[in-house]
């Protein structure tokens, strides 16, 4: 006991990192058809997340890897049970990645349109499925007495889990709109600001519904009281209200801090509601996976803790540095794309 809690908390940190960071690049992808009116707009939007999305995405890979090493039973049951969902997420993420790599490699409008849409589809589909999958851990899924998955793909879906997916999408769209106000100039920035003013209240309302429902589900399915889950819910509510107000006031920097903090509080709410279980079993509650019956041995956890203590700060440092280096606003003078280079188009 002890290191299991450490790793449960570290997994919450990893999922938080993933959602706070990839959340805004998903959001930018979702807004491509809305805010990207011209090719220049769309290229600016792609460039605003182009150097970052892959670093952001690594957080989820580390989360999955850490689950494998720290909670192998959880990993085995979750990855068997979520097989189709994870297959779909992988497919969506692969098609989305292609848009960053290939969109600028040819000039035809149809080609560019295909890859802009592939980004949007991936940016909506992946968080929708993540929300459904993660919420189903708390909502309850069929687990047999051998800790194995005893359900099918349909067991992931309920009113609560689908709302989780929709709430996640809306929160990311708002987060992405605020991010764009920080990284663009001129007309695109003004439109991103308008989108942020509309999306923050919408995300706030749906997100609040999701958080309240989470407390109810934690109470009904996971034998939890309202306390302590209510604490991160209050933090989320205050942060969301601040985000709405700051977005209306056009204070982009602080609005971004507020949307990021809201996402942190949402992930913390989910993990606090899960604790001490990691995968709630329904209908046989006694078969639920907990941080103790799903964890690795003490030696493994000790080695992992030392490794994480050394490398996590290094990762945080170089990721922060990459954001600092590439902080300039985009959308001024266009720079040459690979397609421009082979067409010998002179640089402006």
């Amino acid at each position, binding site marked *: 006991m002890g290191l299991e809690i450490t790793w449960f908390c570290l997994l919450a940190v990893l999922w938080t990192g993933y959602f706070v960071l990839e959340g805004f690049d998903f959001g930018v992808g979702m807004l491509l058809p809305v805010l990207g009116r011209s090719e220049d707009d769309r290229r600016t939007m792609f460039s605003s997340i182009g150097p970052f999305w892959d670093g952001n995405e690594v957080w989820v890979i580390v989360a999955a890897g850490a689950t494998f090493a720290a909670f192998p039973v959880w990993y085995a049951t979750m990855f068997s049970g979520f097989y189709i969902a994870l297959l779909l997420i992988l497919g969506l993420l692969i098609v989305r990645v292609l848009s960053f790599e290939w969109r600028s490699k040819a000039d035809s409008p149809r080609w560019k349109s295909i890859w802009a849409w592939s980004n949007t589809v991936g940016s909506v589909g992946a968080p929708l499925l993540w929300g459904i999958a993660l919420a189903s851990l708390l909502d309850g899924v069929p687990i047999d007495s051998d800790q194995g998955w005893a359900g099918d793909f349909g067991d992931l879906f309920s009113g609560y889990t689908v709302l989780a997916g929709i709430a996640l999408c809306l929160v990311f769209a708002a987060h992405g709109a605020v991010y764009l106000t920080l990284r663009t100039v001129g007309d695109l920035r003004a439109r991103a600001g308008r989108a942020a003013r509309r999306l923050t209240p919408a995300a706030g309302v749906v997100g609040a519904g999701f958080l309240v429902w989470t407390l109810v589900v934690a109470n009904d399915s996971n034998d939890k009281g309202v306390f302590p889950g209510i604490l991160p819910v209050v933090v989320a509510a205050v942060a969301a209200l601040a985000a709405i107000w700051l977005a209306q006031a056009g204070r982009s920097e602080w609005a971004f801090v507020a949307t990021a903090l809201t996402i942190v509080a949402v992930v913390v709410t989910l993990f606090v509601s899960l604790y001490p279980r990691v995968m709630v079993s329904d209908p046989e509650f006694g078969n639920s996976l907990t941080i103790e019956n799903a964890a690795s041995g003490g030696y493994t956890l000790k080695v992992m803790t030392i490794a994480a203590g050394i490398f996590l700060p290094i990762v945080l440092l170089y990721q922060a540095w990459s954001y600092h280096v590439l902080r300039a606003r985009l959308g001024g003078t*266009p720079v*040459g794309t690979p397609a421009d280079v082979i067409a010998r188009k002179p640089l402006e």
Partner: protein
Amino acid sequence: VLRTEDAVSPSVSTATVALSLGAFMLLYTILGVVDFVLMRRYARVDPPELAPDDEAGEALQAPSY
């Protein structure tokens, strides 16, 4: 010894595994063909002439999507 048959997910059916394998094979085949076409197109173009001054050369290095 942990045999493959002991380590397999009992809840994932053969049909599901076949479906995922087929999906990845199809996806990566398409990606391979598109990638080949793109690489051939770029390989056929002569390299751009060196810019007379350093400024133009540096501008090209900015990431653009």
